[in-house]
């Protein structure tokens, strides 16, 4: 089973306080803002399967798969994620 599932992707959306906008066909787009600027975007695939793979999300939010999993499962906070982005000069 995929590590980053749709269920986990939606948990990441919630954790990062992302704004969801309707995409074109197959996706909704999650937009993450910080201090008034858009800092990351990623797609949430439409479909009812909770185990649908979302392995593309880690690179979109500039973290490793394991870190994305931590974000979705709770141990990593939004602030800790922002710290990672700061270290990578993404904000």
């Amino acid at each position: 089973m995929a590590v980053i599932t749709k269920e986990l992707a939606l948990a990441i959306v919630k954790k990062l306080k992302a704004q969801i906008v309707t995409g074109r066909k197959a996706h909704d787009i999650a937009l993450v803002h910080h201090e008034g600027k858009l800092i990351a975007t990623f797609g949430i695939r439409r479909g009812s399967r909770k185990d649908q793979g979302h392995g593309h999300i880690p690179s979109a939010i500039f973290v490793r798969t394991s870190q994305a999993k931590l974000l979705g499962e709770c141990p990593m906070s939004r602030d800790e994620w922002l710290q990672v982005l700061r270290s990578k000069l993404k904000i």
Partner: protein
Amino acid sequence: MPRPNHHFLNFMGKSETIWPREFECPANLPEELISQASVESTQKVQALFLAAFQELSAKWEASARLDALYRQVLLLSNRCDMLEHLKTISVPIETFAPEPYNLIKPFHVVVRFEQDQYIASFYDANLSDSGDTQEEAVSNLKDILLSTYDILTGMSEDELGPGPLQQRKVLEEFVRKES
């Protein structure tokens, strides 16, 4: 001279005699039973037994060899399947048709298999998407690429952080919306 004590331990650990004590060992058979004829018969039986044994051994060896080969083929087949999945391929993107977007110049996306799914990536723009098949992953990537283009070009530069700003610059090199 004491005869050897032929016995074995049964499954309960109790010692049991294998055959009646009077025929405990073939060497103890009465002399009169060992005639020339019985010796010849015994030799024939021994020869037949030996031939049958050799034939069976050869068959068993051949069967074991075939079994080992079968296992190796199965192992190689599994590894081929795995490598087929792990193979990274590069897919050229030459059109966005039927979407109303022009491709300024073609580019390649990389598709890889990872954790039960295919992930298509356009690394220059840091855009990726997944799918259950390679085709679905590429199709999803094209979809997210155009959605992202729409969103980013609809915002001013001041509203974009370093990542999305870079994404927009790259996308504008490759995509233009039809007027």
